């Protein structure tokens, strides 16, 4: 271990408190009993699909299309997940095959030289 046990515990606690506080913020603004404005209710309804779209991009943020391997492994694997999922609608299958395919691609065909 690079730092002492107590220092490690402090790091873990600070990280935990920060994450919890981040998630708590909206609930501090709208505690129980306080009416939620219609605009916020509307956002609550339409945000999920938009946020999932954001998360997909977020996961792929490190991909470069101008540098080898030009995002090809990501493109192929994401397409495989989409096609498999539309076809079979089986979460386990789509995630499992997609991940194994991606690992195979980046470790063999597209392995960094």
């Amino acid at each position, binding site marked *: 271990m690079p730092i002492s046990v107590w220092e490690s515990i402090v790091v873990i606690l600070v990280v935990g408190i920060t994450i919890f506080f981040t998630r708590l913020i909206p609930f501090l603004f709208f505690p129980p009993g306080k009416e939620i404005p219609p605009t916020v209710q509307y956002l609550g309804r339409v945000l999920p699909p938009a946020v999932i779209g954001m998360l997909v991009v977020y996961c792929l943020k490190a991909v470069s299309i101008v540098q080898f391997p030009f995002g090809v492994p990501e493109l192929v694997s994401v397409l495989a997940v989409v096609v498999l999922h539309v076809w079979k609608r089986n979460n386990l299958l789509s995630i499992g095959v997609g*991940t194994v395919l991606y690992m195979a691609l980046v470790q063999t065909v597209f392995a960094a030289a």
Partner: protein
Amino acid sequence: MKEAFPYTIPVLTGYLFIGFAFGVMFQEKGYNFIWAGFMSLLDYAGSGQYLAVNFFVPGISLLHIVFLEFMVNIRHIFYGLSMLERFQKMGGKRWYMIFSLTDETYSLLCLTKVPQGVDETKFLLCLAALDQSYWILGSVLGAAVGSAVPFDATGIDFAMTALFVVIFVEQWLTSGSHIPAYIGLGCTLLCLLLFGSGNFILPSMICIMTLLLAYRKGEKKYAH
């Protein structure tokens, strides 16, 4: 618990994979499986924990940790916004729901309709707790196996991407309007191009909110 389990299977796969990858990385820094489990119990955030692995170095500033963790998890503020009503009905149990509101649990809560005849509070609590148990299991396994059998895990973190793609497709196939999905993808892509991969989440969130609100206004206008 029995009713909730089938809904959590996609997260089970995803979390075993990415929790495992976290365990492997943490173990490489010199922390065994007990530490990995302990951290996943108290911290519980995929990208937050991947990032936190780098904090275990001499002389790290606590303020620096708070700032980076806040920035990397800032998208979670969105999640709470769409869970306000549901969680407020849950009494004291809402504290755990807020604590465990990860990307994956949030997506599950968005997708899943509570089956008939099942207590909603208990059901949602089971979903959340099952998810965290997979995460802890994955990280413990990763740290234990990673130190015993070295293997090439390159690319294993794609499980997280695959999980979100699946949820995206699922929402696409089941929802009436695709406008919010387009807004989410479009704004984030644009902000990624404009601001670069280090700073694009906050502008994306602002852009998404603005467009969604503008879309609502437009819709109202045409409805009359």
